[in-house]
């Protein structure tokens, strides 16, 4: 009985994973020659847009598209964010990818251009290499002689081995201190940094696993190292320009690192860093990795931001900028002028435009099926057909939202699978946007502060 209650306690501690709207996307779903598969990696349909995104992706990988912009345009719920996300997933972990929503730039603490600049610099990686000479081996024996008087220099010997060789090192005072501080004993696997003399304990050798009857839980067992004793270790790191900026802008102290609130970064600091990085590049010590900056809902940017973007894209350290919008011909924010997608014509001229189109019935069915799997819901085939119909007539987002709701209804009926009655029930309980509008029109007189059709928001 005790054991059972113990496990239930453990379950409470485990984190509940939330499922996001695009958590099922793992890539663009393309073959090696960029032909889109009908349904792969969580992507369904949108074949043309995905192929275009695939071309963009391969250009980014070759570093050719830096300083250009791509616009993904399409109606709401046609997978614009999904394509951007798939693109970021397929670029791999080494390419920096920053996703912001255009509304994020309106912050009280920072100017609009500062937020944009930070986002730009977050999307540029710098690849640098660290090279260290280390001595790595399993300790066979440590021998430390203390002088009889108690004070004075200690001398000692350290025997290290790998699977291939064994050797004895004579120890100086400093290393002996480091060894005693790290509590190194025979059977430990250690590394000694040749340049600094820093000793790191990697763990205990497997062959010594049975030396003691009781060992602490933090004891880590490792294999005896192979090959040579004196090794060269090369590690390649990718850091973003923004990370370097933040550290060199330490006017507000260390706290900035933890709170993430970096405030505005001075222009001079950025210039210095650009100069340093340029110097490294010239010496062959660093490589630039142009990443991707994704700005969602780009029509929310105003005319100042667009002119800033126009200029920033010409910088030689600019990332690939991907923007997405669901607007048609509309007003540019901050002006009275009307322009396609709410983007000024000169900006639009710089962009490659990828169009997404509404999903077909078959595709909606497929997406709903994938979402059911993602949300851990089982659904009967005929219920899926009904849900697809709902998706076609209302919107895909509404149909997706009904999945979990219908699942709850099914659980209430003590059934594992979602059936037609569940879908019908939640369809009646939660109305969609069209029905809500219809309802409001019917009863508009009975609502408070109603302005009728004249005061409606302009959406076109």
């Amino acid at each position, binding site marked *: 009985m005790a054991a059972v209650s113990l496990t239930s306690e453990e379950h409470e501690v485990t984190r509940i994973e939330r499922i996001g709207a695009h958590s099922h996307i793992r890539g663009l779903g393309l073959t090696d020659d960029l032909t889109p598969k009908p349904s792969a990696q969580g992507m369904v349909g949108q074949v043309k847009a995905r192929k275009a995104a695939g071309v963009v992706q391969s250009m980014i990988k070759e570093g050719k598209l830096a300083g250009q912009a791509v616009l993904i345009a399409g109606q709401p719920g046609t997978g614009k964010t999904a394509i951007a996300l798939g693109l970021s997933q397929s670029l791999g972990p*080494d390419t920096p990818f920053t996703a912001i929503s255009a509304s994020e730039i309106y912050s009280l603490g920072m100017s609009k251009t500062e937020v944009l600049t930070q986002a730009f610099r977050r999307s540029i990686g710098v690849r640098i*290499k*660290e090279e260290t000479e280390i001595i790595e081996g399993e300790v066979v024996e440590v021998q430390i002689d203390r002088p009889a008087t108690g004070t004075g220099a200690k001398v000692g010997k350290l025997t290290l081995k790998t699977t291939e060789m064994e050797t004895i090192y004579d120890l100086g005072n400093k290393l002996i201190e480091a060894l005693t501080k790290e509590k190194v004993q025979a059977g430990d696997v250690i590394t000694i940094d040749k340049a600094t003399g820093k000793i790191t304990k990697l763990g205990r050798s497997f062959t010594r696993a049975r030396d003691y009857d009781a060992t602490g839980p933090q004891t880590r067992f490792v294999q005896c190292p192979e090959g*040579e004793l004196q090794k060269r270790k090369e590690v390649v790191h990718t850091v973003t320009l923004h*990370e370097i900026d933040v550290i060199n802008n330490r006017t507000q102290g260390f706290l900035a690192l933890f709170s993430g609130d970096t405030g505005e970064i001075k222009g001079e600091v950025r210039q210095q860093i650009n100069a340093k990085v340029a110097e490294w590049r010239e010496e062959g010590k660093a490589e630039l990795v142009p990443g991707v900056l994704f700005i969602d809902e780009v029509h929310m940017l105003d005319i100042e931001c667009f002119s800033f973007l126009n200029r920033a894209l010409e910088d030689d350290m600019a990332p690939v900028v991907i923007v997405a919008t669901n607007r048609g011909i509309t007003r540019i924010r901050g002006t009275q002028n009307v322009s396609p997608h709410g983007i000024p014509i000169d900006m639009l001229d710089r962009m490659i435009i990828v169009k997404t189109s509404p999903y077909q019935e078959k595709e909606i069915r497929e997406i709903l099926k994938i979402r059911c799997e993602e949300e851990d819901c089982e659904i009967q085939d005929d219920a899926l057909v009904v849900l697809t119909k709902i998706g076609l007539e209302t919107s895909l987002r509404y149909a997706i939202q009904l999945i979990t709701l219908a699942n709850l209804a099914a659980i209430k009926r003590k059934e594992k699978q979602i059936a037609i009655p569940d879908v019908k029930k939640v369809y009646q309980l939660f109305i969609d946007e069209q029905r809500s509008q219809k309802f409001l029109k019917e009863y508009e007189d009975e609502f408070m502060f109603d302005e009728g059709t004249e005061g409606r928001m302009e959406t076109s």
Partner: protein
Amino acid sequence: MATKAPETVQQYLSDVESAAEEVITTQQEVVTLDRRRNTNREALRSLRSNAAVSATTGSGGRSWICVGNMFLRMPREFVVESIEKEQKQLDTEINNLRNSLRGKVNKLNDLEGKEETRGTSLRPLSQDEWCAVRQALGK
């Protein structure tokens, strides 16, 4: 996908094998040289510490050295000098082998269709530059 002739497949496999063989031999060579380097280091160390002892007892400035299959009794300075010379040579040789290893591993990865390890052709940052960068990474 077009089926490939057995000859091309065989050719491909033997290419991969030979590339892998090259990597392994280079690694093995580094190990052998490093072993030699370590025994030389031990010898130098004990020659130095014995020098202090024999200076007081006065057993002459000569020690044994093994060259090939022969043991020779040589003046200590000469012995130390020749071992140090060898050490220097070993260091450069190991360095050269390691540098060549990079290209060989990349070639093998390329043949096996794995992605090239990026950034290995870069020159490393210096010690104090790394100190600054490590700070930037918050470590």
